[in-house]
């Protein structure tokens, strides 16, 4: 077996426009800061599900308010900023733009402005939630409108910049990563608009929009960006072509059609129109097609590359992330079934699934792409020890977390079906709440190592030394 050896990262990075590298790095470091904050908040919340008296005397730190601070900061501060930051690099590279001058001055300025708009939105959002303005209303859109407005503007800027980069590509075909990037920015703009419009804000009309929003915010934004990044990073890191380009195209279009209509599976067994519920269940199962088109594609690309993966510090993250994509989505299809929902809906199982998807799938792929691609842009590699600690602690932490909560959710749901007193289900799941805290603590520690590694990859004097004059 041969280990594919690409060119050394400092050669790959040579000539990269330092302004571009700094812009991308700002997105990634901001994401890292939000990750640390949001995981600390999440861990505090996990502890409180074991002992509700922790920090209980302040209204602005109460459980109900910090929970959306955790979810919103993770979604918009961490995952969105990290994915967009990496996507700038991937779109520019797969459009074959000259890396010594990929973006125009205006594009650079607006991309930096977009970065600060998101940071302002997430920062003000956390304060607004803590002070009790949850007027956004629904799950994953708890921010009041004035926090979402700057984020919405940033999405617009990013979408236009992506489009312009792709439009001036120096290659005939548009690579599949760019398909996902371009589509996702448009899709999420529609999703955020739907989440914050004021035409349907009461009754079941609101609930329909809520189901749509919850699932499309995840599936038409995080999933396409994470999958799009992987379509670039995985072949690049293995130094070989993707197994099947056609499978990628199949995945793209089936994802578009199937994922859009499954939101109502969050509201099965409710008074919502039965046709809408059944459509959601059918297409949730059909999601196996796009998910395994891409997962299978990635796995087939990795086939026979065991040695390369075990010798790389970025590919293990991508390997775990790809498996996470396949199996978290499979779990989601299974959870949408009516008979399964009778027991598992409303339980901690759902929380376990949400973390499985956002962490093992999205977050591990982000990390893999960061460790794989950022050194090729800045010329600086992270210390292997930090990455190793990061990988194993994060993997152990999320394993304890997801397994603990999925078993706990099953116990909780079975207790309900058996007709035991409600408090019995609370007592029975207490050990699982403890496991959740243990897993969360391991994850938080791993994030500290990750942040240190990310900081070591930032563009610095080394990058500049290899930068020739502009226009070369």
């Amino acid at each position, binding site marked *: 077996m041969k280990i594919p050896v690409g060119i050394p990262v400092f050669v790959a990075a040579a000539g990269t426009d330092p302004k571009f590298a700094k812009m991308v790095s700002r997105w990634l470091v901001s994401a890292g800061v939000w990750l640390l904050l949001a995981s600390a908040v999440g861990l505090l919340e996990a502890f*409180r*599900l074991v002992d*509700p*008296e922790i920090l*209980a*005397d*302040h*209204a602005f730190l*109460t*459980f*109900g*308010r910090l929970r*959306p601070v955790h979810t919103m900061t993770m979604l918009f501060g961490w995952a969105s900023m990290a994915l967009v930051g990496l996507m700038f690099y991937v779109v520019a590279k797969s459009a074959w733009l000259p890396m010594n001058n990929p973006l125009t001055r205006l594009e650079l300025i607006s991309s930096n402005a977009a970065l600060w708009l998101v940071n302002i939105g997430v920062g003000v959002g956390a304060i607004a939630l803590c002070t*009790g303005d*949850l007027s956004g*209303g629904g*799950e994953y859109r708890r921010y009041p409108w004035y926090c979402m407005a700057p984020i919405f503007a940033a999405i617009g800027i990013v979408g236009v910049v992506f489009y312009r980069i792709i*439009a001036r590509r120096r290659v005939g*075909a*548009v690579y599949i990563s*760019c*398909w996902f990037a*371009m*589509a996702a920015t*448009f899709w999420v703009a*529609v999703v955020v608009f739907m989440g914050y419009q004021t035409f*349907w*804000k*009461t*009754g*079941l*009309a*609101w*609930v*329909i*929009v*809520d189901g*749509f929003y919850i699932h499309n915010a995840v599936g038409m934004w995080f999933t396409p960006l994470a999958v799009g990044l992987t379509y670039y990073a995985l072949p690049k890191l293995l130094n070989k072509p993707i197994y099947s380009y056609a499978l990628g195209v199949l995945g793209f279009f089936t994802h*578009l059609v199937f994922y*859009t*209509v499954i939101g109502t599976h969050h509201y099965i*067994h*409710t*008074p919502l*129109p039965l046709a*809408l519920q059944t459509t959601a269940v059918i297409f949730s199962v059909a999601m196996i097609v796009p998910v395994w088109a891409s997962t299978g594609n990635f796995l087939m690309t990795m086939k026979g590359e065991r040695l390369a993966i075990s010798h790389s510090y970025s590919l293990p993250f991508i390997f775990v992330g790809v498996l996470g994509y396949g199996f978290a989505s499979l779990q989601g299809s299974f959870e949408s079934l009516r008979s399964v929902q*009778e027991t598992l*809906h*409303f*339980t901690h199982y*759902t*929380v376990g699934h949400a973390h499985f998807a956002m962490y093992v799938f999205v977050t591990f792929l982000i990390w893999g792409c960061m460790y794989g691609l950022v050194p090729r842009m800045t010329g600086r590699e992270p210390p292997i020890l930090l990455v190793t600690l990061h990988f194993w602690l994060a993997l152990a932490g999320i394993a304890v977390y997801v397994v603990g909560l999925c078993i706990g959710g099953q116990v909780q*749901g079975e207790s*309900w*079906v058996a007709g035991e*007193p*409600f*408090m019995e289900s*609370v007592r029975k799941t*207490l050990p699982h709440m403890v496991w959740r805290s243990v897993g969360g603590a391991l994850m938080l520690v791993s994030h500290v190592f990750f942040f240190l590694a990310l900081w070591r990859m930032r563009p610095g004097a080394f990058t500049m030394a290899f930068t020739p004059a502009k226009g070369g």
Partner: protein
Amino acid sequence: MAFNIHTSHRLLFLIPAVSYLVLVAVCAVIPAMLEQQREAEVEAPFEDALLERGRRLYRDFNCVACHTQQIRGDEALASVIEGERLIPVLKADARFGREVASRREEYAHQQPPFMGTQRTGPDLSSVGRRLPEAQWHYWHLYTPQSVSPDSLMPPHRFLFTTTQPSDDVAADYEKVLNIEGLGLPGKELWATPDARALVEYLLSLNREFIEAEGLSR
């Protein structure tokens, strides 16, 4: 320009964008508009300032993070009695003292409806009938574990104020009685207007009565 999605970024932008808008219209916009029409047939509820304030506090303390307001039904066992379609309650939801599942009318004109997706604590759609005593809710909000041992609910003590027996208290505060179990020796406990509003809202959650009216109609 050849019609080739692989080489035309315009097509590549337009096709997913337009298809998405069509799908959004089919799966969200049109169903929402239809529901809105149905909602207009239900009479808007009586507006009460204290209730409205309680409802807003329920939203801003994010009670919906742990409490649902929906009793799920088993569609397969639906029956029609006197023109009303009744759906029996799912086994897992049967403990909350309701005979029929939540219905469309329950959520009419609520902005937003607190259906919820998580049930770390019990369902509250009929809590006003299960637990009709305001004083119980004051004890529970102050220290949930005092009335419900092993509860995981965070205490909401910031909705209350403690005083010495001799102190003056504003007129819109309500005294909490029988506070021996709350660990406040020699003190008095007062519910702030916020606590009163929140409890007023909780007591108003009495959904089976709404259904009973629906049945007799």
